[in-house]
């Protein structure tokens, strides 16, 4: 097993730099998720680890070894792709054993590894079947098995669940998390799905346009995003953003918007007071918009009125789409909420749960 270290790694295609000054340390046995929108450079970075793309500049270490010039087959890594390409005329056993045969592994050793991987993945009863007789989830497990038998130092997974339907994806997500604990190995996992990232990763690298935006644990990313992009990317429904002006009244900073005039929460007053007269970006997560009568009674100065556009009942709660002076805001209200489409509705922002961002730099102010 081994960790990975990126030191100032960049990747250029001709003059176009797609990964910029990438610095990161992935610890041994860590489950690291790269997440970001399409084109953010996450797959390119994964392919640089695999050796499928050359590193333009910088250094990449796997364990203690500098691997910039080490060919892919000697890097001791295994990849799992979105398309679980299996040999159609080989059995599951044959599919899992094939890579080891290519590497001239002794027969007895191949047998031991294949059976052990099959046991871990719970596919022992499928070893004699051919891919045609397997479901999508079972095929993906065979693809995982092919990687496991190699006993690599690092597993690289490139959106391995994207081809599965929603239900199976949730199931396999849990399977991979369990598997990772059993295998006790380093995993680098690429996805564009923030739910996968949040539920599976020890730490997450959020990327955009080839730059690392933030590296942190899932909860830290959620609670302390470093900029507007991370704040909007992590969390579903995503954080609401509204531009507000800060004013100072009797020493207390207030947030002013066409539809509201709200006092800054106590914990944030010291930071916001010097910004009086400036415009900042307010960020509030849907769960911190409240229409509970007791909450509003306790904080009457945190309330405002908004027009309800659409109510989406989710069962245990409702997603309510509101318009606040022509800006869109999403709230998560309890299922018992009285919010009705096309009516005005009274609600409150939890002022102690607000995030503030600099409009120009987009960086968090707190």
């Amino acid at each position, binding site marked *: 097993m081994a960790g990975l270290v990126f030191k100032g790694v960049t990747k250029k*295609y001709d003059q176009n730099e797609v990964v910029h000054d990438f610095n990161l340390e992935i610890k041994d046995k860590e489950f690291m998720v790269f997440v970001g*929108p*399409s*084109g953010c450079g996450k797959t390119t970075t994964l*392919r640089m680890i*695999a*050796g*499928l*793309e050359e590193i333009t500049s910088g250094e990449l270490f796997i364990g203690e070894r500098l691997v910039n010039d080490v*060919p*892919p*087959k000697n*890097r001791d890594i*295994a*990849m*799992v*792709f*979105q*398309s679980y*390409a299996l*040999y*159609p*005329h*080989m059995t599951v056993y044959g599919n899992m054993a*094939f*890579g080891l045969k*290519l590497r001239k592994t002794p027969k007895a050793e191949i047998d031991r590894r294949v059976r052990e991987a099959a046991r871990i993945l719970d596919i022992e009863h499928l070893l004699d079947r051919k891919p*045609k007789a397997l479901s999508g989830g079972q095929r993906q497990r065979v693809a995982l098995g*092919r*990687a496991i038998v190699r006993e690599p130092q690092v597993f690289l997974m490139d959106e391995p669940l994207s081809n599965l339907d929603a239900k199976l994806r949730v199931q396999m997500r849990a399977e991979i998390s369990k598997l990772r604990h059993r295998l006790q190995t380093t995993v680098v996992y690429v996805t*564009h799905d*923030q739910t996968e990232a949040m539920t599976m990763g020890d730490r997450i690298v959020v990327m955009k*346009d080839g730059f690392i935006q933030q590296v942190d644990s899932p909860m830290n990313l959620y609670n302390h995003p470093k900029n507007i992009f991370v704040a*909007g*990317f992590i969390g579903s*429904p*995503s954080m609401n953003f509204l531009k507000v002006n800060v004013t100072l009244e009797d020493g207390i900073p207030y947030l002013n918007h066409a539809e509201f005039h709200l006092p800054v929460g106590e914990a944030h007053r010291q930071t916001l007071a010097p910004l009086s007269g400036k415009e900042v970006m307010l960020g509030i997560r849907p769960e911190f918009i409240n229409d509970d009568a007791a909450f509003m009674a306790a904080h009457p100065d945190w309330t405002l009125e908004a027009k309800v*556009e659409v109510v989406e009942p989710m069962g245990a709660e409702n997603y309510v*789409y509101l*318009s606040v002076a022509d800006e*869109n805001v*999403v709230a998560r209200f309890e299922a018992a909420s009285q919010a009705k489409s096309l009516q005005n509705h009274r609600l409150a922002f939890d002022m102690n749960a607000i995030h503030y961002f600099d409009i120009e730099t987009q960086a968090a102010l707190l």
Partner: protein
Amino acid sequence: MQRAFLEHWDETAFTAHTRALDLPNLSPGARVLVRCQTWQPDISLILRNFLPQTQVFWVNGQEIFLHATPEDGVGATRKNLLPWAESLISQIHSMLADELGVLSYVYVDTPRTQGLWSGYLSLGRLAALHRRFFPGEAGLALWQAGFAQLFDSLAPERMEHYPQNVLGDKLSPELRETLQTYFRTGLSLTESARLLYIHRNTLIYRLDRITELTGYNPREFKQAITLFLALWLQGT
């Protein structure tokens, strides 16, 4: 599978090999060209196992040319062959990367192509289009090349003028990303909003803003085509 290694990849040598191999009538399938970053004999071993029914197989340097026939059950109709052939691109690409760590690009021709030599030439052209217009993709099927074939025949300066006239520098990176996502999802508002992590109304606002700035409405089919081509050409 029959196999030949050709040193001189020209029609004469090709035809001579075709005769020498005494090819049976080719069953319906697709011509496939796999271009690898490096050649090693295990590549052919993997392809032979992955495409066990494949009839023809030639290797020339780092190029492997084959006539791939679909698995049982896929059927030989054009409708069935297209998704099968498209999935070949990602499957062969990931198979070679996974088993051998070899980076490859895969090109697939239509089953209509007459003759193996013309199939090979058509895939060669596809490889050139790929390098020019789709450098980030794992490969290309002929029917995915679309407008690229048309634009390939135009003078480079005309290709530069077109996006400049339509888009200029009017769009911010955010609006550009919005438009790209909107086109990638086949003009789906819901799916685009989901991928961009924004509210549907925010997306509509941004699309309206694009209309204001460029004079082309991405929600109108004909105007969307104009914007799509300009955006795509600007990115190539």
